[in-house]
């Protein structure tokens, strides 16, 4: 995986540390003010039908209304459940397969051809196939998310276990570590930075694909379905409110999942893979 920056730390505000906090807030808000003003101008000039290009206050009103009535939280909750379920499956099976491939030559020979055939096909291309095999609903959505996010996890765990230095293994063995202790105290800590990177990449891929899967799989609740369903009724304001929630969840994942994971590995091991 060649992700240099995968929803990574953008270093916001680091350069402005010498000026006031107020200035920093303004500096980050300013682009949004400009874009918002342009949006408002276009919406109010009436160049496009208001149905298709609603002004921001309409979107905000819809957002508040749907949040208050509990519709939006319900959609968001179901999306998050699917994300968690799919990702958890991928993490368990991906790490197990990757570690096995790293440790055993036989497992590597058996699994690697399968993994390298599956990996270059964009996961979304399997969606109709999964829908045919599992029927519409939650099962194909979760299965596809798990399937897609498993690949980076497998690759990275495999690479991580292989990257454990031979000399660490031998010195641990020389100090009479048995297999279990070798695994727990040498291989796992050695491979963990890679595994964490794999989990981060896998979660990012799962997130990117989930919304589209929800659109295709006709699930009863979910942000993707909310947006796609709103299209039928030309409810552009609902769609944009849904996208705002998606952006918020994405930012939340980045702030509270990806960055802590990354900091955790950097601080703990002083390395980044």
């Amino acid at each position, binding site marked *: 995986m060649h992700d240099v920056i995968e929803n990574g730390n953008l270093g916001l505000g680091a*350069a402005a540390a010498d000026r006031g906090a107020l200035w920093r807030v303004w500096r980050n808000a300013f682009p949004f003010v400009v874009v918002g003003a342009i949006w408002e101008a276009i919406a109010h000039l009436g160049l496009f039908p208001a149905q298709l290009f609603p002004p921001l206050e309409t979107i905000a009103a819809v957002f508040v209304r749907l949040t208050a009535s509990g519709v939006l939280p319900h959609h968001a909750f179901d999306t998050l459940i699917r994300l968690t379920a799919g990702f958890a499956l991928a993490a368990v099976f991906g790490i197990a397969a990757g570690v096995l491939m790293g440790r055993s030559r036989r497992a590597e020979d058996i699994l690697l051809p399968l993994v390298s055939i599956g990996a270059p096909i964009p996961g979304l291309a399997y969606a109709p196939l999964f829908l045919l095999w599992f029927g519409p609903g939650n099962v194909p959505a979760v299965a596809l998310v798990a399937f897609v996010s498993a690949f980076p996890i497998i*690759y990275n765990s495999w690479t991580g276990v292989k990257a454990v230095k031979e000399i660490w293994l031998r010195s641990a063995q020389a100090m009479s570590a048995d297999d279990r202790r070798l695994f727990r105290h040498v291989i796992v800590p050695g491979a963990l930075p890679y595994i964490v990177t794999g989990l981060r990449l896998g979660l990012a891929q799962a997130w990117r694909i989930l919304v589209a899967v929800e659109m295709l799989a006709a699930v009863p609740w979910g942000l993707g379905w909310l947006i796609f369903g709103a299209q039928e009724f030309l409810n552009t304001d609902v769609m944009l409110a849904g996208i705002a929630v998606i952006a918020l969840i994405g930012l939340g994942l980045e702030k509270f999942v990806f960055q802590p994971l990354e900091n955790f590995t950097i601080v703990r091991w002083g390395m980044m893979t």
Partner: protein
Amino acid sequence: MTPMRALPWRSESLRRGALTLIVAAALYEAPARSGYLPPALTPTLGDIAHTLFASLADGTMLLHAAATLYRVVVGFGCAVAVGLPLGVMMGRFRAVENFVLPLTSALMPIPSLAWVPVFILWFGLGNTVSVLIVFYAALFPMLLNTWTGVRAVNPIWLRAAGAMGANEHALFWKVIIPGASPFIIAGLRQSFLRSWIAVIGAEMLAGSDWGLGWVIFDAKEFLDTDMMLASLIVIGCIGFVTERLVFGSIERATIYRWGMARSARG
């Protein structure tokens, strides 16, 4: 997927790998032929191969692939044309960085495919939607990698070149661009991967008669599973070829030749 290249292909591994594939194929073929599963859902490998060759021979598959590639190339090209200069400017000018970065960090976490329904309403079904989705998907990796690359250029090189009397123009073309190139190439690669995923999804949701994503989605309506699997194979092959051959050779011709092993993480 770099580790693949380093894999030593011993004959033992090759034999076991081939054996795995044969066993996997047999495991698929046995239930497919047994009649317990509906043949419409699990066509035999022979059927899939037959469909694949038939559609390749009469040219429909090639036309679908061409439509998809056209959308990817246009969207990806536009993303590079915008992302590369903008990323360089972000790296060079603080004002541009201050303006673009907050917007980027707000838009980037939104999966590109979430915009499909909105774009369909705005632009109607057809090519425009797919191209724009590809553009959206490819823009941010390009932008951020270029920006990081320009900022990662060793300041000593800049000062050394300046001390040797390089003007802005020479500094830009001889120092900054080559110095940032490992990141830029990683960005191109990542952008292409994202475009490839995005185009399939966009074609499924905003289908317009041609395109590999549309074929798969359309085949589902008619339980045409062998056609779906045949298109999956074509999609996989195109993705594999561009990833390995195109970007692999770009990498070999540039950063490996210049002796700049990729310093990027990941």
